[in-house]
């Protein structure tokens, strides 16, 4: 191996006494790009790449725990593709397994409230509820982060109070007011409820984020002659994009997953949202596990995929919302 050889002086005119000097030091060019591995067999390399036994044990424990953690979901997934008889026999029995899409077909066309319609309803409610909350939330958060105004502390306190309140607490008042304004059992009614409920945490979350944006940027824009609204549109909105993405993901998940609000405010089966339909599928005599599993998979797929795609924003937002 050349790397291990004593280095012969490479200069043409290196004198004999240069040898000792050059011997002691390596030249920068002699450092290889990657570790010299050719002289080692794959066996030793493999042995070195395997972590120590303590660490191996740690990995084994960690992977086991993580896999055990999702076993229930694996079961749900398996059950969604198998006929009821095989589910009752145990989805973990793999011999003689038959795969069927019948469960999905049944859930999709469920007679009381087809999931096809329920999923559509969920989208119809969730998307406007998320978009409006984002816009109104960042607008309201801006004065909270930057201006002093009367009642600011009181409003702040009210927001905290609402964040602590259980959704059940606003159900009675909202039920009566939706009845009165004729929005009970409509998309618009549920959307408005979700917007009003979500605004609290969104304003607080975005305010904390906006506080971190240096004020100099706005001052610079003001000196350049921008109005408050221009500053908001051209400086604040673009800079808060990461936080707005976090808000979007978390609020989407919350509205999509919400069960209590639709249960109270959506009474016509053709307006049922997906989470509302799932418990109805239990049936009276024999629980229709296959159909429930297929329906659950279809309902949970949306937030779970969204989480996996925007995992960083979701986690960062979750941590910032409660810990900062």
């Amino acid at each position, binding site marked *: 191996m050349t790397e291990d050889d004593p280095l012969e002086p490479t200069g043409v005119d290196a*004198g004999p006494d240069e040898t000792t000097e050059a011997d002691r030091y390596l030249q920068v060019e002699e450092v290889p790009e990657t570790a010299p591995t050719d002289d080692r067999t794959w066996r030793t390399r493999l042995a070195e790449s395997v972590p120590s036994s303590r660490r191996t044990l740690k990995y084994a424990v960690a992977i086991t725990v993580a896999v055990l953690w999702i076993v229930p979901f694996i079961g749900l997934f398996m059950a969604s593709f198998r006929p009821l008889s095989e589910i009752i026999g145990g989805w973990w029995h793999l011999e003689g397994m038959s795969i069927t899409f019948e469960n999905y077909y049944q859930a999709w066309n469920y007679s009381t409230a087809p999931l096809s319609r329920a999923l559509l309803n969920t989208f119809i409610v969730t998307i406007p509820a998320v978009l409006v909350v984002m816009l109104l939330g960042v607008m309201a958060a801006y004065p909270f982060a930057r201006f002093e105004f009367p009642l600011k502390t009181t409003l702040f306190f009210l927001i905290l109070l609402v964040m602590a309140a259980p959704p059940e607490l606003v159900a009675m008042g909202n039920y009566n007011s939706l009845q009165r304004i004729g929005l009970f059992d409509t998309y618009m009614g549920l959307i408005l409820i979700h917007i009003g409920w979500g605004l609290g945490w969104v304003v607080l979350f975005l305010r904390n984020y906006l506080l971190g944006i240096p004020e100099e940027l706005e001052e610079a824009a003001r000196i350049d002659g921008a109005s408050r609204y221009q500053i908001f549109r051209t400086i604040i909105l673009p800079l808060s994009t990461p936080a707005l993405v976090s808000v979007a993901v978390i609020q989407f998940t919350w509205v999509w997953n919400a069960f209590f609000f639709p249960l109270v405010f959506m009474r016509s089966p053709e307006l049922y949202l997906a989470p509302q339909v799932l418990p109805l599928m239990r049936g009276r005599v024999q629980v229709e596990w296959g159909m429930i599993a297929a329906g659950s998979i279809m309902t949970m797929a949306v937030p779970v995929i969204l989480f996996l795609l925007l995992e960083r924003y979701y986690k960062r937002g979750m941590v910032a919302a409660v810990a900062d």
Partner: protein
Amino acid sequence: MTSISMENVSKYFDSGETIANYQLDLEAEDGEFLVFLGPSGCGKTTALRLIAGLEQPSEGAIYFDGERVDGRSPSDRNVAMVFQNYALYPHMTVAQNIGYPLKVRGVPPDERDRRVETVTELLHIEDQTHKKPAALSGGQRQRVALARAIIREPSVFLLDEPLSNLDAKLRQEMRIELKRLQNELDITTIYVTHNQEEAMSMADKVAVMNQGTIQQVAPPQELYDRPRTAWVAQFIGSPPMNLFRGTRRNGSVDLGEAGTVELEGVMNAKAAVETGGRDDAGTASMLASDVHGTVALGVRPEDLTVSTTRPSSGNAIEGTVGTIEPMGEYDLVNVSVNDQIVNAKVSEATVARDDTVYLTFDDEDAYLYADDGELVV
């Protein structure tokens, strides 16, 4: 107390994709103050962490007093370390921070308090012991970190860029303080820095590192007087050494339009300086007329003289004056030689912009580096 030696130590990261250190060979004698000096990313901190035991070498061996220590954990090596950001435990008071290494070793509280008192007095922080680190200034934190490191009388003292977070004045102060401590305690000390001034002022021996290898290990004066490669030459000294690129021809260096430099004088001067260094055969081969190749002629800015007239004898390099920077203590003249800017430190500049000037130097102040950067003369 402890001598350290590294033999062929290499450290690879990312399963060999990255080489942090490559075949380091190094000796630090008992009580010596050794400095790892190099630009950021040269592997000096990794080398320190290998000695600390925070990393284990991929290849090679590390010895403390002839005893092999690689593979041992930091706690089994009796080393103490000061981190770049001091790594003070934010939830403990100054006294708790300093006493922590003793607490871990089960030293009884009374003895602990006594020793904390001693070191805090030694470092002049006895008034701060009840504060939390967050309430301290940068210099005080530095002292707490030092106190924590020396309290248990380690056999090796490791410092990772300890002064880089301080302002210039404090840095100067702590440099003196550190040197005093090291002299007093006489602990083998390894110090990592990218600041050559720190290295030169404190070290008994400097190891200059670049791209994971050691370029030269020498006492500061030798490093300055005899930089082994063009890279070291340019790294040590401020402003850096000027390197004139040229071609060797018939015992001289051809610098194109700027003129030629005769090597004979340079050779003889070096031979005279380095007693027993170079034999005649070597000198002869240097001057042989058939030797060709690109070389760099190095002269430090402080060794250049600037004059407007061509000297009658000796070597002179022709150039045009660019800007002149008055630095108070001296003037720095930027001269353009073959489109290359060189610096000359003169006590008072008597030349003006766009003057044609001749740069002269004593033969013994010139260095000749081969194409590969190695010192020829």
